[in-house]
């Protein structure tokens, strides 16, 4: 493999396959052959939680191409699949398996997103509910700074909520594998025991007595919510204990308040779209704000095209035809619902390239401009 990879990444082969690159030829022979790109085959889909009336959670095991460089516990990966109508959609998922080396199998664990717009299939729903074993998905390399240091401190606090457990679980599993001899305090918040992801494994961890205190909390059933007093009781002087926390926004604000700016706290946010799946019909009054993230400018949405609004805000984005044909003004929209004035089509996907000369915002919208 080493020799093949060296050859595939050689400058000679790159020159011979110019301008398309080696991967554009390899993928035709076998999608699992790659010189630079990362793809993976789904080798297993296992339901973790399946409560009737609630979106299911599943762990997907992926066999990546040899180009996968491995990951550190806590990192995430961008995962793209072709869902309805041959449209590739990419979303970010945390890796739930312990540290992996180059080319190693790993798992992602996700809840099928119940809020996905009706007209577009969501990546998580597709993977959890329908993806057959053998499906090939597109990956980035592992990303993110939410990782344990190489020298793990003696005492570690892990806090997670809902499906925010995935990166924390990866850390916990890595700590066990690395035979960490210190103490780990793990707090996890879930709706109910039925909603608990990795319940059996956590139960085993709790009973094994390897210095890992597991606290599974269900505030809706009367368990204490996260508060400084509660944390202080579990971990005296918790503000100075290295802590990693991941979960939905309300939990994260409670964590931030409790740690009060302590440098011992490391957090990971879920990226939640502010999109309104039903919003933005033509003729609706304009509302919200338009944020031009790179310029640091926010303006009130006046209902004009994003190009006009950017220009009115004093920006000078590149543009050409101003009628949606030349693509010069294509810009990454990071959040919000926009309507294409030519087709009337609305779109709420985060991280989508749009032609700003023919797009009007229907909700608060953020652009990489």
């Amino acid at each position: 493999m080493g020799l093949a990879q060296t050859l595939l990444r050689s400058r000679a082969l790159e020159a011979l396959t110019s301008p398309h690159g080696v991967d554009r030829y390899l993928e035709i022979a076998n999608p699992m052959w790659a010189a630079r790109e990362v793809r993976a085959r789904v080798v297993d889909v296992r339901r973790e939680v399946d409560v009737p009336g609630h979106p299911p959670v599943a762990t997907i095991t992926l066999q990546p191409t040899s180009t996968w460089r491995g990951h550190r516990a806590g990192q995430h990966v961008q995962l793209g699949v072709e869902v309805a109508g041959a449209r590739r959609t990419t979303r970010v998922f945390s890796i739930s398996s312990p540290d992996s080396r180059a080319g190693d199998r790993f798992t992602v664990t996700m809840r099928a997103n119940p809020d996905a717009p009706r007209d577009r299939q969501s990546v998580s729903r597709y993977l959890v509910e329908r993806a057959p074993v053998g499906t090939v998905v597109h990956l980035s390399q592992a990303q993110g700074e939410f990782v344990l240091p190489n020298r793990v401190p003696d005492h570690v606090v892990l806090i997670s909520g809902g499906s925010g457990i995935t990166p924390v679980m990866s850390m916990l599993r890595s700590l066990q594998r690395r035979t960490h001899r210190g103490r780990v305090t793990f707090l996890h918040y879930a709706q109910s025991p039925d909603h608990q992801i990795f319940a059996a494994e956590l139960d085993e961890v709790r009973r094994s007595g390897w210095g890992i205190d597991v606290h599974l909390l269900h505030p809706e059933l009367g368990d204490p919510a996260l508060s400084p007093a509660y944390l202080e009781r579990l971990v005296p002087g918790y503000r100075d204990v290295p802590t990693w926390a991941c979960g939905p926004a309300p939990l994260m604000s409670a964590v931030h308040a409790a740690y009060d700016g302590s440098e011992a706290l490391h957090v990971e946010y879920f990226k939640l779209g502010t999109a309104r799946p039903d919003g933005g019909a033509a003729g609706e009054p304009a509302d919200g704000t338009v944020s031009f993230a790179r310029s640091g400018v926010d303006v009130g949405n006046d209902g004009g095209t994003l190009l006009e609004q950017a220009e009115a805000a004093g920006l000078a984005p590149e543009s050409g035809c101003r009628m949606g044909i030349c693509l010069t003004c294509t810009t990454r929209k990071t959040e919000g619902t926009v309507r294409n004035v030519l087709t009337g089509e609305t779109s709420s996907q985060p991280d989508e390239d749009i032609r700003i000369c023919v797009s009007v915002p229907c909700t608060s919208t953020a652009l990489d401009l």
Partner: protein
Amino acid sequence: MSTSTFDHLTPEQIEEFGEEMDALRQRLVADLGEADAAYIRTVVKRQRQLEIAGRALFYLPPAWPAAVAALSLSKIFDNMEIGHNVMHGQYDWMGDPGLNSRMYEWDTVCPSEQWKYSHNYIHHTFTNILGKDRDIGYGILRMDEDQQWRPYYLGNPVYAFLLMVFFEWGVLLHDLEVERIAAGEKTWAETKHLHRGMLRKVRNQTLKDYLLFPAVTGPFFVPTLIGNATANLVRNVWAFNIIFCGHFPSGVATFSREETEDETRGQWYLRQLLGSANITGSRLFHVMTGNLSHQIEHHLFPDLPARRYPEIAPEVREICERYGLAYNTGPLRKQLGSVARKILRLALPTRTPSYDGPEVVGEPAAA
């Protein structure tokens, strides 16, 4: 000024015409999906297979003609049905980086970035507006009566022939606007931002076709080199001929800056229709042209997958008939003949509209 007329249409009718086009467009957009994705992926796969076959067959000297044929076809598919169309953003909705207008690079010496500017923006926005659309004669040829005649244009057929043979190089140099530099309207320094991209792409393309692939065939270095050059030539000749049939056959209208100021959407559609011409032919022929044989539909809907153009052509034509608008189409030999006659005719000064009187020579150009 137009040679086709739409004077019989009221402004309201022109807007109605535009609305019908918009409706057609929306219907197509709503229908995009698996079939379009499967189609373009099949074309890409065939192109890559042809390319690999062509490169490999140079190891078998008796198969030289087959190698050249496969490589020529590969370059034609790459440039036309794949490159041109992908770079129009026709498949951007798929979200596949390999088929994305911002990332695709084609197998020809012109960098995609520069071509997209002059083609997608300048040519497709200002189609056939004299003084704005540099694709009218590409700054080299006289392709319209309203381009003022100069003695330089006596060479029109020679320039056209040279442009055909060296077409990919012509496309490369297009953005430099050498004719404007020569006329003193622009300085060489103003083209500086283009040079690096051009040189890099030229280096990659020539290295591959004229050094590396010949070298890897070892003893067959020279036949491979000649084969690669021939494939590039075949692609040049084919692309030139198809493209020249898109806007230059007789009956295609050109427009002045004045009459296209403050244009409405309906008028824009009208200009795209009247400024373009189609070529009739078989299914394979249409694919070989990248469906640019449906230049009219392409100019109406430049960012919709080209495989849809033949499908909607009857409907576009029917709409045109209802509005009494010309729909310029014909077989390749007819359209090519018409273009060739225009190239020859415009080498000479324009005669006043013909009546059976004596020939009147147009004013000599004020140099």
